């Protein structure tokens, strides 16, 4: 028999070695997979997407901006561009690069898959918000148009992705761009967030940290070069203009102009009652449908009845039934505050 100490050390080494290779996402095998997947096709498709994005936002696109967007050097970007031209996807006019009709429809196909996937991840899975983009970025190169149509049908042919971007139809149609950046708003204006740009991730995660999401109703309080102050769901938010630029707002369906603070469901203590005002747009897909199926819609009376350990989840009495809801969701269900209840 081997010496137990040597066996022990050997065992630890073997496990360490195996996890070095196979650890999900960080392991050698996954790195290798990513590296081999970074093929020419992926680069072509990413470049097309970038070109389309420039076109949509009315800014000009150059070899350098492609190099920056794909994180490759200028030489490789130049080669990529000539390859795109040879494929008939791109027309070069001096410095400016322009998509051909063929290139545009190719780009829209990729964008359709990307946005459908983000929508699917947001609605049907519990994937973290910050991971949506990365997963969609991988899937967009693997899906055929037929698969995309199937996915779209499965999730009810959505027209917007969770960031508020329109999803191209299977014919490649897109509506015209609407709304304006948050930093161009005037104090006192009401608006809805219609789009939050998910790139770069550093800024996107800061926006997420503020709890902002498309569909949210805001009221601008103060706009200056240094900061933009606004009220969102009754709480004050302050953003720098650089970040605010990535949020697009528009005046869409403001059926109820709610001013001042309103309470969230999780603030109810056991035995207290409230009236539901609405469910935040951040709760979507299955989660939202399920809550609405249970009768949590505007006007419903709700009473906190039972607490679990650490007050999470809490059971509420809704329309005669007792429903346990986690704090994460209860934070996003709004109640009429006392004052408005009287009026």
């Amino acid at each position, binding site marked *: *028999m081997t010496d137990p100490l040597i066996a022990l050390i050997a065992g630890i080494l073997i496990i360490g070695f195996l996890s070095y290779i196979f650890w999900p996402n960080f392991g050698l095998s996954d790195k290798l997979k990513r590296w081999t997947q970074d093929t020419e096709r992926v680069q072509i498709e990413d470049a097309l997407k970038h070109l389309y994005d420039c076109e949509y936002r009315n800014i000009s696109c150059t070899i350098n901006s492609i190099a920056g967007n794909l994180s490759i050097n200028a030489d490789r970007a130049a080669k990529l561009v000539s390859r795109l031209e040879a494929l008939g996807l791109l027309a070069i006019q001096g410095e400016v690069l322009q998509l051909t009709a063929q290139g545009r429809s190719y780009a829209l196909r990729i964008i359709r898959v990307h946005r459908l996937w983000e929508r699917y991840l947001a609605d*049907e*899975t519990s994937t973290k918000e910050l991971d949506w983009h990365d997963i969609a970025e991988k899937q967009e190169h693997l899906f055929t148009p037929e698969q995309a149509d199937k996915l779209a049908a499965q999730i009810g042919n959505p027209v917007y992705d969770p960031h508020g971007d329109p999803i191209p139809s299977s014919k490649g149609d897109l509506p015209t761009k609407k709304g304006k950046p948050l930093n161009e708003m005037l104090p006192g204006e009401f608006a809805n967030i219609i789009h939050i740009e998910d790139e770069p991730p550093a800024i996107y995660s800061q926006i997420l940290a503020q709890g902002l999401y498309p569909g949210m109703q805001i009221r601008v309080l103060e706009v200056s070069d240094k900061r933009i102050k606004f009220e969102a769901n009754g709480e004050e938010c302050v953003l720098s203009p650089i970040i605010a630029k990535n949020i697009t707002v528009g005046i869409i369906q403001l059926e109820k102009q709610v001013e001042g603070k309103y309470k969230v469901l999780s603030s109810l203590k056991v035995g207290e009652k409230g009236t539901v005002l609405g469910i935040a747009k951040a709760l979507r897909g*299955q989660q939202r449908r399920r809550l609405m199926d249970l009768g949590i819609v505007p006007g419903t009376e709700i009473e906190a009845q039972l607490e679990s*350990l650490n007050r999470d*989840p809490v059971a509420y009495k809704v329309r005669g039934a007792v429903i346990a*809801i*986690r704090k*994460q969701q209860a934070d996003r269900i709004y109640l009429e505050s006392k004052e408005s209840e009287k009026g």
Partner: protein
Amino acid sequence: MNNHNVNREAILAAANNLRWEVGENLHDTLMESIYENATAIARKAVIYPDKKPAFSFDRTLDKILTSKYFGFPLMLLILGAVFWVTIEGANIPSGLIASLLVDTLHPLLKNFTNSFMPWWLSGVLIDGAYLAMAWVVSVMLPPMAIFFPVYTLLEDFGYLPRVAFNMDPLYKKVGAHGKQALTMAMGFGCNAAGIVATRVIDSPREKLIAIITNNFSLCNGRWPTQILISTIFIGGIAPAYLTGLVSAAAVVFVAILGITFSLVVSWILSKTILRGEASAFSLELPPYRPPRILQTLYTSLIDRTIFVLWRAVIFAVPAGMVIWLAANITIDGVSIANHFINWANPFALIFGLNGVILLAYIIAIPANEIVIPTVLMLTVANLGLSSVGAGSGVMFELDSVADTASILHAGGWTLLTGINLMLFSLLHNPCSTTIYTIYKETKSVKWTLISTLLPIAMGFSVTFFVTQIWRLVVGS
């Protein structure tokens, strides 16, 4: 016709444009306004009789069952009682079925088939296939026929949603669904049934986590192994008057270890390959109601017991044949089973197990119930003891624990082997019935493979480290 098509295209395109205009909240807005109107009408038209519940039985019971101090102890107590009823209650019917199928019917069938079949054919069919099936039925049927109805009664009464409510904070922390507590409890009865039960979880990510970790619930087929080995090896080192208590504690410890593993693995999965956060959890806590006993008995027997038993039988029959053949086909005068045992022994010893155990677990993939009978049969055959047993390739079980102990000690088993067998019984691949069910539920080879290989990799790692540390501390 062509004109018609063009028209249709134009209408569809216009409709699509309108959908962008309207935005994505149309359905919600519609639904909300319907509810709003309905509530307004109901408020005017419906008069509620002014009756206040004099004594709210439900709320009082809820306060106790989910309270900070009594919630968890009561839960453990109730689940413990369910297991106790299952184990104790199953003993007698198990014995009766075994004596009918194994002691009475087996010799009859054997004599009958021997009269016209060659010895090897009646061996494969009767000693192999029939006997394996008989073991599975006699060991599995009574506990399942007790456990599933009792479990369904608790469900019907309304207690199980409260368990999920109590356990939810733990599952939320590991990024899993609160209802995983229910499927885990179901797994204590049978992992295959537990995996079918994961259908109550809507989110695909959390459903997969529940499926992969379900195997960490000790199922009925493994309880007998745990109890027997714990009685022989762990109860054996305690003073006689404590034997029962100590061995029961050891089994409960292994079960709790399983729950811990299921939480830890859920956490690791939701950080790595199944990244994500715990999704919405809305659980209805229905009012308590008296269970409908007859209906419950009927549905749980048909839906769960018979269903699981049938699958187990299908898989046990070929396994029985393999066992018989392995013990009876000889190469150079030594049976295949012995060849394997001798070959695997050095490897198995690193993990504190032995070749017999490994072979038994390979043969017993179809049904965990036959592990102990197979281990005994193989040990006897391997040692060449002729005084006990029922002939080569014939599974048997001994009436007394002491007899079993003496055979295992003769096979070179130590306390360490016992502990490792208990650990390995907790952490090894699911039985083939469960693997097949996982495939049916996930429709994915990848997830089926992961659910199969992950526990076995963990089992080998855990037994390996336990063995080496044991040898370092205690000496071999």
